[in-house]
């Protein structure tokens, strides 16, 4: 492992600013790390030449005194963001050979800020999954291994490639997208920080859609500060996305004062699940203690509709997905499997182009929107969704932020739970409610399981109050002092 790949994004930025390294040097080190980490399968497409070219122009920009917020910093781009001229797959066979002629707003913002693209990171197909196992390009390995057995583990999903790449020190940071936990859960599984901002904070324009009312891009990195720096560059109001919100983007890094004295932190009693592993509960209690020691007041709160969040999510997200994925029909781009008629071509193309999990969700979504079932499922789910949002709104009348575990377990084995979708969906139990309410949340690595695997704690905040989330997250990070390294790096 090169000295350069050990750096945090913030420290690399500072070294570059001081002229103690160059974008080229930094990028070369990371390109080598990407190559060395190929067994993890974290990248679908590596773009080393592009990275080096971007690094060179970045060094020139810096010389010209035009350095951006992320000038010269190599990052991974989740392969759900359309990148001009670079293969964009969404982890699906159906987008075979798709090279967009356009750049997503978020990736464009990052390049404008000077970031360097190392490649497109692996993900669950169309971001549907919690293990990264549904990718057409194969599962991703978590760089962590359990102390009790040495079998490979999943990095979580759907932003599993980004999480694995950042944890394995292949990239200083990476983008993720979070629909029901797809940034926070893999961050927790891989021992890194993952931040899902408020819905509407980052533009969805140019991001391959999974569930439009939930999808939100966010940063993944190795420190809270790094995610704060990343988000500032990613976020923008975008008139091309009608759901993007026109509010100023603050300097999140500056919000990390470390001072949470007098702040009220809610502890939702409904997040205490039956059968939840003791180590998760213990970590949560530890988190409460850390925040109290830092001067915050913790109060038990009730989010009474939490119990309905998962079923609600698994109606709304597939409903939207079933419609969003209708455009992959073999007519204009991507895979086309010939057929004797139009219908046959559709059937062949979509039958071969989509994997099992995507098909499952398209079928569920089609079902819940069908005449005769619409009110019982989709409409009811929409009503429950607003109740869940109201739970949070009520809680935030008295608290500034909420502390919960990120996931109900540490990373599980590669291939586990594949035959049990319900068990797989349970991974999102703590992350989905905030997604449904559109609220910001961060997962911070806070400890290790008995098997030596990272566990995360989640801080949730009010809409567009990412600053508090970063501030509390930073305090939690400081208190936890998580500095364990994944086994992959030792090997």
């Amino acid at each position, binding site marked *: 492992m090169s000295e350069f790949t050990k750096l945090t994004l913030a420290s690399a930025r500072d070294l570059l600013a001081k002229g103690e390294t160059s974008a080229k040097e930094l990028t070369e080190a990371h390109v080598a790390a990407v190559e060395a980490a190929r067994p993890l399968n974290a990248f679908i497409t590596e773009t080393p030449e592009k990275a080096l070219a971007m690094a060179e122009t970045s060094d020139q920009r810096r010389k010209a005194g035009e350095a951006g917020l992320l000038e010269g910093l190599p990052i991974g781009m989740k392969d759900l963001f359309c990148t001009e001229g670079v293969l964009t797959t969404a982890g699906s066979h159906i987008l075979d050979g798709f090279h967009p002629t*356009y750049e997503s707003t978020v990736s464009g913002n990052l390049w404008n800020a000077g970031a360097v693209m190392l490649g497109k990171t692996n993900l669950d197909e169309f971001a549907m999954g919690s293990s990264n196992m549904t990718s057409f390009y194969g599962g991703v390995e978590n760089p962590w291994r359990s102390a009790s057995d040495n079998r490979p583990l999943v990095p979580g999903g759907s932003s599993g490639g980004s999480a694995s790449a950042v944890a394995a020190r292949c990239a200083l940071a990476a983008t993720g997208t979070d629909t029901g936990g797809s940034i926070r859960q893999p961050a927790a599984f891989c021992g890194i920080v993952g931040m899902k901002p408020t819905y509407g904070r980052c533009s969805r324009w*140019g991001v391959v859609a999974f569930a439009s009312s939930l999808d939100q891009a966010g940063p993944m990195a190795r420190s809270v500060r790094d995610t704060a720096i990343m988000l500032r560059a990613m976020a923008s109001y975008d*008139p091309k996305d*009608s*759901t993007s919100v026109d509010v100023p983007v603050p300097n999140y890094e500056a919000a990390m004062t470390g001072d949470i004295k007098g702040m009220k932190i809610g502890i939702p009693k409904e997040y205490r699940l039956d059968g939840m592993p003791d180590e998760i509960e213990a970590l949560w209690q530890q988190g409460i203690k850390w925040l109290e020691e830092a001067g915050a007041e913790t109060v038990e709160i009730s989010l009474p509709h939490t119990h309905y969040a998962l079923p609600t999510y698994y109606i709304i997200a597939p409903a*939207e997905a079933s*419609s969003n*994925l209708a455009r992959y029909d073999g*007519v204009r*781009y991507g895979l086309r499997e010939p057929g004797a008629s139009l219908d046959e071509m559709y059937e062949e193309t979509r039958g071969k182009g989509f994997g099992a999990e995507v098909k499952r969700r398209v079928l569920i979504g089609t079902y819940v929107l069908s005449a005769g079932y619409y009110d019982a499922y989709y409409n009811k789910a929409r009503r429950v969704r607003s109740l869940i949002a109201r739970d949070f709104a009520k809680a935030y009348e008295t608290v500034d932020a909420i502390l919960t575990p990120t996931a109900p377990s540490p990373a599980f084995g590669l291939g586990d739970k594949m035959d049990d979708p319900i068990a797989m969906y349970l991974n999102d139990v703590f992350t989905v409610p905030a997604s449904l309410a559109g609220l910001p949340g961060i997962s911070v690595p806070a400890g290790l399981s008995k098997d030596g695997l990272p566990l995360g704690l989640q801080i949730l905040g009010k809409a567009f109050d990412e600053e508090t989330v970063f501030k509390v997250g930073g305090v939690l990070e400081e208190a936890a002092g998580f500095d364990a390294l994944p086994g992959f790096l030792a090997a």
Partner: protein
Amino acid sequence: MATIQGKTGEWEMVIGLEVHAQVISNSKLFSGASTAFGAEPNSQVSLVDAAMPGMLPMLNKVAVEQAVRTGLGLNAQINLTSVFERKNYFYADLPQGYQISQYLHPIVGEGTIILDLEDGETREVGIERLHLEQDAGKSIHDQHPSQSYIDLNRSGVTLMEIVSKPDMRSAEEAGAYLRKLRTILRYLGTCDGNMDEGSMRADVNLSMRRPGEPFGTRTETKNVNSIRFVQQAIEMEARRQVEVLEEGGEIRQETRLFDGMTGKSRSMRSKEEAHDYRYFPDPDLLPLELEPAWVEDIKAGLPELPDAKKARFVETLGLSAYDAGVLVADRDTAAFFEAVAEGRDAKLAANWVIGDYFGAMNKSSASLDSAPVDAAKLGGLLDLIADGTISGRIAKEVFEEMWESGQAAGAIVEAKGLKQISDSSEIETLVDDIIANNPKQVEQFKGGNEKILGWFVGQVMKATQGKANPGMVNQVLRSKLG
């Protein structure tokens, strides 16, 4: 009320129309691509229209404004909150796999249209709703033996779907409805109404019932793209339904497709085969909220609409309801008429515009824009009639010449010496001559044959090539003969 006589008695048609009107705007409903007609295939397609991954719809404010303007023109309720929903179905020329439309919450609610019928009567037809939606692309099936080509130029173009209540009872009423709707849309400038370019298309909902009974089962005939075809489709479908019903059969609720080539329709799909469109609110778009003040501004900027114009023509210009109706049927015609009538005898102007002018236009297939005689020139001709320079009869001759040459009336009258002879001594001399040369006819007149006076007038006109002032000729003849 028009009814159809069947073998077993009278039947009444119940007709409702759904009109798809393409909104006049430079760009599409959710993208910046151009909407110009007749461009090269696939040359007006944005990333959004082609449904590329990650593309998002962005609402075109002009389209919304046009829908509101149309709603106001139909005296309809404007809904300050409306919702775009996705109508999901697969077809090769529907790139998104869904059409963005409005379903439960349309932008415009109930309104009314007043039909002007042939007999001069009027009749009110209710508007159920108007909503905004995207058009699909076009599939072209005749270019390749086994494959179809897709042109996405039309994909995403803004349509207003205007749904009537089932208030029409005959093919004539349906025709009058479409004509009136088209007139209103053209007045408003919200749709060009060109059915042959597909910018206005109609679906016909029709059921039959015994007069006074509840509605029967209806069929929907799609894709009818001219007023004549709509009327034809209605007649055919009404007859078909009556036949089925009189033979003791039942009408199946179904969608039928009209074929303009054969003038017939065939069943496309039954109710059971109907698509389940799985409508749901489009999560890419927020509910559309309109500011009341903005709607008021649009309302204040509406032009005078045909019904108001017609009433004004009748009440303040003294035209007959029929003439007024003919003149307001087209906004440009009405404007032309008003230019001609300005400061002149409005009835005379109406007669000339509707009679000679329309006649000449039809004969030479000219339009108001291309006609050789403009409003000022026609007005000039009317002025010559009004001040007695020429007679009405000569004026027709002058008008023909004007149409041929494009010259002003005065110049033609001058050049051809067509000025009316109103000099009494000249007329008297002529009359004296004719009386002297035709003693037999004088005798007849004196014997009480009043009709022979006409013959004398004819002789004077013949001698003057029609230029003699007819009133004066009559007067002089009577005094000389009497």
